[in-house]
């Protein structure tokens, strides 16, 4: 099996300060990778480098295109990269308002990606949008409401629907449950886990919440001060942490 994404020696600096340094990993189709670490550990920097929002100084991000060839998305031309981020990639922001158009109806938000790749039949776009709203448990009576009339949890689910409607192969998630209360978090996680399994998605999830990765991630990467300090299967890393920082992280979680 060949990896979907191959990350080689990614380093990003902010002046003389380190964003992230020498990150290497492979992501295989259908695999969910968690990146954990405290605030400022470089996990969001890394995610933004992978998703093409930031330009890393060193390193390659090789992505398997639909024709099977591995292409470096760092040196790829901008139109190609933007095309990827509309089709094969999805990015779920921590704050739904960063990923949604707040003055466009829910249906329009979901339909935007379809129209961006050339859908020009209103009936089909709308049907697709309603279908996707259903899949993220939003009633079809809300299809013409604006996201500003939605609760935080609904906005986040709408953002997920908007991203998955074009059938991407790789999803980047930046703290998808941040700012939601625990019961809403649990339902969202349940939903995401279902969608990931059902669609065979690969995903990279950045979070500081260990419960999220325990539920969703197959593999885990622990970051501190821009460096990867430990990697391994999720259960292995969480149940038998080797690095001192990982041990601290795991023991900081309150066991209820």
């Amino acid at each position, binding site marked *: 099996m060949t990896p979907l994404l191959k990350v080689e020696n990614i380093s990003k600096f902010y002046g003389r300060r380190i964003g992230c340094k020498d990150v290497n990993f492979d992501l295989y189709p259908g695999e969910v990778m968690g990146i954990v670490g405290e605030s400022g550990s470089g996990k969001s920097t890394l995610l933004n480098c992978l998703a093409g929002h930031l330009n890393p100084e060193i390193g390659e991000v090789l992505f398997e295109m639909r024709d099977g060839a591995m292409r470096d998305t760092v040196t790829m031309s901008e139109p190609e990269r933007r095309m990827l981020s509309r089709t094969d990639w999805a990015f779920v922001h921590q704050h739904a308002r960063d990923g949604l158009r707040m003055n466009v109806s829910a249906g329009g938000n979901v339909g*935007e990606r379809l129209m961006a790749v050339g859908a020009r039949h*209103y009936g089909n776009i709308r049907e697709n949008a309603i279908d996707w709203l259903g899949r993220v448990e939003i009633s079809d009576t809300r299809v013409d409401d604006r996201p500003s009339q939605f609760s935080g949890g609904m906005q986040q689910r709408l953002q997920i629907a908007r991203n998955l409607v074009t059938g991407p192969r790789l999803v980047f998630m930046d703290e998808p449950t941040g700012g939601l209360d625990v019961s809403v978090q649990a339902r969202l996680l349940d939903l995401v886990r279902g969608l990931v399994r059902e669609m065979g998605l690969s995903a990279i999830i950045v979070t500081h919440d260990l419960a999220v990765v325990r539920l969703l991630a197959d593999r885990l990467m622990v970051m501190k001060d821009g460096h990867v300090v430990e990697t391994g299967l999720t259960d292995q890393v969480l149940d038998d942490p080797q690095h001192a920082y990982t041990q601290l992280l795991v023991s900081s979680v309150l066991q209820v």
Partner: protein
Amino acid sequence: MSDYNFAYLDEQTKRMIRRAILKGLAIPGYQVPFASREMPMPYGWGTGGVQVSAATLTPADTLKVIDQGADDTTNAVSIRKFFEKTAGVATTEETGAASIIQTRHRIPEEDLREDQILVYQVPIPEPLRFLEPSEIETRKMHSLEEYGLMHVKLYEDIAKHGAIATSYAYPVKVEGRYVMDPSPIPKFDNPKMEMAAIQLFGAGREQRIYALPPYCKVVSLDFEDFPFEASKADHACDMCGATDSYLDEVIMDDSGGRMFVCSDTDYCTGRRQAGHIGAQAAAASAALEETAV
């Protein structure tokens, strides 16, 4: 001759504007930035169109200015007077007799010829502006031909109103490449944009010029199941009886009386002179005859 340089602007400024116009004609639908000057009128009154007209005028030209199709409204009258004073060119109200026509929000009903130029006044040249506030982002979208967002606007229209409710400034795609704002002309005029005359668009406050060369392909955006429709009031002109012209609805009294008249005053006058008469004009002249008897 007046104390002004010909057509108010100095020669260097006119050269700069002409370069922008030529670039615009070479890349149909592309918004060319230009160093818009302050004009002796407020923004929103056609400063862009006036600068384009000034750069295009020659002493031999005949100028016509219309505002919403009419030759006799404030905006049209003052711009016409402005060029009478600063350029000393001949002016006319007849579409056929003009070589340059500056317009606000209409295209004349009469077909334009190859030796004519139509200059539009444009308030907001960026068709994507209301959905994407960032200029950097919209420029990138134009350069990468990412126009999905334009259809999101039309989608919202249908979702809200059951049909594409945008009735003016209806976005068009030029020569299969750039999406362009045709200025706030009614969508009834959109099909007319594939014409023999040169069309120039000037936005003074926003500092943009764009252009359509003659016979340029201009397609109004739509959905397969909601095709574009050039709509107008379903009525004939009450003055001249025309059924093919764009109509203004005029409220006549407090008891619901109204009439529909051609928004193109020159077209309406021409038809009446040729003997055509509309329903209310006929009724009025019949009433006049009765009182005379």
